[in-house]
C-alpha cells in the first residue's frame, strides 16, 4: 500500500527540471533567477526539517505529541495571521489563536470520531495531515476575513458612524462589515468546491492515490476534507471577528485606530 520511495539520486534528478524555468528566465531577462533559487533552497530545507520531525512524530504516534504538533502549527499560523493583517500582536494573538484552534478542532474531531474512526483514534497519519490542511485554509481565511473586516470599517467609517448615529448598537453597526468579510473569506473555498476535479486534481486526492488507494476511496477522502475545510473556515473567521471585537473599539463604540500597526514610511 506504500508509494514507491524516491532515492536521493532520483530526487537530485528532479532538480534538473529547474533548468527549464531558469533557462526561460535567463533568455528573456526575467529577474526571477535569484529568487527562484532561494525559494527552492528554502523549500528543500523546510521540508527536510518537517520530514525529519514527522518521522519522529509518526514513530512515537502518541496522541499527546500529535496534539502538541497541532498546537505548534496553530501558534505559527497565529503569528502569520497577525503579521498578514498588520495588526497589533499583543491584542490579537490570543483571540486569533483561540479562533484557529476551534476552527481546526471542531471539523478535525468530527472527521476522526464520525467519518474515519481510525484505530488508534488520534493516529498521526490522520491527525497531522488533515489538521494541517484545515489549518492552512483557516489561516488564509482569517487573514482575508479579519483584515477585510477592520479595514472595511476604517475605510468606510462614515457608513459605520451613520449606523451608530441612527441608534445601532455595536453588533448592529458592524453587521454589514461582518457580512462582507465572511463573504470575502469563504468565497475561495466555495469556488474551489465548485470546480474541484475538473480544473485540478486536489493535493490530498493525489496523495491518497499515490499511497496506493483506490480512486473512489481518494474522492471520498477529498469530499470529506473539503467539507471539513469549509466548516473550519466558517467557524474560524466568525470567531476571529467576534473574539477580537471587544478589544478593538473604544468605550464609545468607535474603531480604536491603535489596533493597526504603524504604517511603514513608504505609505
Amino acid at each position, binding site marked *: 500500500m506504500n508509494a514507491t520511495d524516491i532515492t536521493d539520486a532520483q530526487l537530485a534528478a528532479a532538480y534538473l527540471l529547474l533548468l527549464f524555468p531558469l533557462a526561460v528566465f535567463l533568455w528573456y531577462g526575467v529577474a526571477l533567477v535569484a529568487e527562484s533559487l532561494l525559494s527552492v533552497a528554502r523549500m528543500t530545507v523546510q521540508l527536510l526539517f518537517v520530514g525529519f520531525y514527522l518521522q519522529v512524530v509518526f514513530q512515537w504516534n502518541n496522541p499527546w505529541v500529535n496534539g502538541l504538533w497541532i498546537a505548534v502549527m496553530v501558534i505559527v499560523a497565529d503569528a502569520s495571521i497577525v503579521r498578514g493583517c498588520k495588526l497589533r500582536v499583543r491584542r490579537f494573538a490570543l483571540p486569533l489563536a483561540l479562533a484557529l484552534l476551534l476552527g481546526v478542532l471542531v471539523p478535525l474531531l468530527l472527521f476522526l470520531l464520525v467519518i474515519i474512526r481510525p484505530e488508534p483514534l488520534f493516529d498521526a497519519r490522520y491527525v497531522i495531515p488533515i489538521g494541517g490542511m484545515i489549518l492552512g485554509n483557516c489561516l488564509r481565511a482569517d487573514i482575508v476575513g479579519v483584515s477585510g473586516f477592520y479595514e472595511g470599517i476604517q475605510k*468606510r467609517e*462614515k*457608513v459605520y*458612524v*451613520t*449606523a*451608530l*448615529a*441612527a*441608534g*445601532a*448598537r455595536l453588533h*448592529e453597526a458592524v453587521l*454589514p462589515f461582518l457580512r462582507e468579510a465572511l463573504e470575502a473569506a469563504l468565497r475561495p473555498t466555495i469556488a474551489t468546491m465548485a470546480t474541484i476535479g475538473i480544473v485540478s486534481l486536489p493535493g490530498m486526492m493525489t496523495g491518497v492515490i499515490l499511497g496506493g488507494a483506490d480512486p473512489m476511496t481518494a474522492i471520498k477522502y477529498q469530499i470529506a476534507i473539503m467539507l471539513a475545510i469549509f466548516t473550519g473556515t466558517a467557524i474560524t473567521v466568525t470567531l476571529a471577528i467576534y473574539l477580537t471585537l471587544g478589544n478593538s473599539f*473604544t*468605550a*464609545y*463604540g*468607535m474603531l480604536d485606530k491603535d489596533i493597526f500597526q504603524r504604517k511603514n514610511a513608504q505609505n
Partner: protein
Amino acid sequence: MTEVIQIHNVSVCFANIPVFESIHLSIANKEKITIAGPSGSGKSTLVRCIMGFVPIATGSVFINNVELTPRSVWRLRAQMAFVAQEPELGDGTVREALTRPFSYHANRHIQYSETEALRLFDHILLPCDLMDKETSALSGGEKQRVALVGALLLQRPILLLDEAASALDETSKTAVRDFLTDRTDLTILSVSHDTRGFAFSGPVTDITRMTRKAAS
C-alpha cells in the same frame, strides 16, 4: 425653559494638538441655534463630541441632564438625530437606506412610514422616484436631503446638523431651512461655515468666540 444640551468646559485634542479648548454651550428645549466659524475651527468636532464620536480631553457633555459617558452614550444617541457633512447612506436603494435604521433594537418602538417619508421628500423638494434609486447614484445635494429625511423619520427630539445644506442650491436651502424652522417640536443645533446661506432665525454664535483657542 429646560436645557437640552449642555457643554461644560469641553476641550478636544487630536494627537495632542488642541482643536478647541474650554467650550461652553447651552441649548434650551426647542431652541434652534446656528454655530458659525471658518473651516478647521472645530465646528464638526463639536457636533461629533455631542454624539460621542470624538473623545473629549476635559469637561463634560450633558443631554437632558444626563452626562455623556461610555455607559450612557448608547441611550443618549437614541435621543439625537445627526446629519453628517457629506453623508454616506450605505449600499442599496434610497428606500433601503431609509428603512435600515428601523431594524435596530433602539428604534423598535417606531415603524417606517413611506407616506411620511414621501411627505418629507415633498417638503424639501426631492422627487418621489428617488426612492428606488441606488444611493451611489445620488448627487451630493440629494444625499444630504435623503440623510435629513432619514434623521427626521427617527422622530428624535434633538437634531444635529453638520454643514447639512452645504451642497444644496439656494431654492433647496430655503426649502430645508423653512421646513425645519416650522418644526417647533425640534431642538436643532446646526453648524455651518456659510451662515448667510443657511442659518435659523435663532441665535448665531461664532465658535471662535465660544472658546479659548489653543495658543495660535
